[in-house]
């Protein structure tokens, strides 16, 4: 059980770091979806079914969709993060 929880935490932590470091915004949005999904699995393993369902639908599904709609409105130049 603990091993399983730790296994789920790996994509969670790695993804969370990747979201803020990756340059391409589209990749960041998709990685954020993976992070949300890992969080949902984590909640499921910890027995919080209500939270897991909501996290999967709202965090992974709807939020990603909203981000993608916003991303499509961005001009080409703004789609990549530039770190000065």
């Amino acid at each position: 059980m603990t091993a399983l929880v730790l296994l789920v935490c790996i994509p969670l932590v790695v993804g969370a770091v990747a979201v803020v470091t990756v340059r391409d915004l589209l990749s960041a949005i998709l990685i954020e979806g993976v992070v949300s999904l890992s969080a949902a699995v984590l909640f499921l393993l910890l027995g919080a079914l209500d939270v897991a369902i909501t996290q999967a639908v709202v965090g992974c599904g709807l939020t990603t969709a909203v981000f993608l709609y916003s991303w499509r409105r961005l001009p080409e130049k703004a789609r990549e993060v530039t770190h000065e």
Partner: protein
Amino acid sequence: MNKLLAVFVSAGVVALLGVFLLTGPARDQLFSGRSELGDAFSRRDVRGPAPDQVGPGSRGLESAPANTVTAIVLDYRGFDTLGEVTVLFAAVAGAGLVLFARRRRGQAVSARRPSLILTAAAPWVFLFLFVVGFAIALHGHLTPGGGFPGGALLAAGLVLLLSATGREPSARRLHLLEGLAGFSFVAVGVAGLVWKGSFLAHFGDSGVLGDFWSAPVTMLLYLIIALKVSAELANAVRTLAHVEDPTTKEAP
């Protein structure tokens, strides 16, 4: 498009009925009134059996949902939930107010065609989301979940449809659905006031703990909440999808 949506929705209803009628536990729930899921959930106990334990089969309870969270959210704290739904409405209305000015009328969301994978998979995934969403909302008094996640699942299905086909149910219908759901919530509350003497008091026979047909008012309220949440979320995403690009003017 409305024809397509009607086909999707009616296929979803048929699939929903099929799932409910043809699978074993659900059929038992419908016709003999005993729900395995509800039983299992109401039997759970963290400290071992209490002396006068309330378990599956208990009758004449003050509040009948087997799912304790639901009993609190919709029965003892029903008024809070009405406020919560109102807050959600206000948030979506606020977002709509800010974004409304830039909305394009009657325009497909994307000029580009969505990918083949999306268009091919969308109807099936939509059906799945539709069935699961309604099932979660309808079993809110028995199992974890309920109207809010169920409604979010329904909204996710509608958003998927929007992404795949570039069209969606009209804003007017969503508004109508949302308004009707909000009105029904208050109407149920007023019915409690009339019959039981306090707003949102649960009227009617609370039934047998763990049954599918128990806690009728809870079930009704969660269905209303699911419809309201799905209409609100779908409308919010829909508004966002229609926002015009503020930086570049579209060619006519």
